[in-house]
């Protein structure tokens, strides 16, 4: 009886690890819309008097970050990896961002 229960749990987990087709298409649409948004923001900066300065750069990179998150979260389903591994990966990304920020602080002309 307990073996059947374990097998049912495994099948449920297997289904859970698969992203649905509709989710994948919605994520793709979101990615394309965000790309359009980034282009619009970049085009608006010099032309329409929208002087965002450094914030314009940050906004565009933020959009890229959101797009990357969507790809990692839904297309490379990181949620279904081992918790220890997810923690290691998160720390690696945080360390990388910290190194990049510390380097960029030395070049404030941005």
């Amino acid at each position, binding site marked *: 009886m307990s*073996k059947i229960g*374990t097998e049912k*749990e*495994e*099948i449920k*987990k*297997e289904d859970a*690890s*698969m*992203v*649905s*087709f509709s989710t*994948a*298409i919605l*994520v*793709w649409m979101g*990615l*394309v819309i965000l*790309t359009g948004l*980034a*282009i619009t*923001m*970049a085009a608006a*900066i*010099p032309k329409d008097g929208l002087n965002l300065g450094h914030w*314009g*750069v940050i906004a*565009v*990179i933020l*959009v*890229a970050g959101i*797009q*990357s998150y969507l*790809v*990692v979260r*839904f*297309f*490379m389903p990181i949620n*279904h*990896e*081992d*918790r220890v*591994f997810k923690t290691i*990966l998160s720390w*690696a990304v945080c360390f*990388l961002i910290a190194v*990049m920020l510390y*380097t*960029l602080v030395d*070049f*404030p*002309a*941005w």
Partner: protein
Amino acid sequence: MSDISQAQSTPAHLEGGQVSGRIGMWLFLITEVLLFCGLLLLYAVYRSKFPADFHYCTGTLDISLGAINTVILLTTSLTMAIGVIHIQKKNRKTGAAFIGLTMALGFAFLVNIYLEWSAKFHQGLYPNSEILQQHTPGENIFYNLFYLVTGLHGLHVVIGIIILAVVLIGILKKAGKTGIDAKTLEMWVENSGLYWHLVTITRIFLFPLFYLIT
């Protein structure tokens, strides 16, 4: 009890060796992220040193072609994800079709890169050209970085297409003939999908940095 705890700690569709294969793939992807982050950091530093030159050079790049290329790669991520889903659901032929579509779109991306580069080459703006050497140091650095980063990214796309071709052959042949069991083939497909999505993520950052930020 121990079966339940193992099921909770390991993705259910993977077994021992496949888990290590997946982790190995992620670790490799992290090294690839380090590679591209280093190059993009280099771009950022030089941009801060030559802001006017980089601003001018960004304006010479074709935003529409860059945007089309970015959307193409985003679409390849979708087709790759759908292909992986089909393989996980044991729909081999449909999965193979979507992986084939991913390869075709990847090839279209490379054709666009070729068009973009050849336009610049036609203007005499290629590394170590006489025309480029007459430009300012900042412009030289911009174009060299442009070719380096987009070229390296294009090389990754080529490698990704080759990997997908190998995986596609494995899918289309019957498991008995290749000696590859279904679980291993599924792992190949998932790992090649991970690699392909990283290529897309690289483009997601590359596009705004080179084409949009002025």
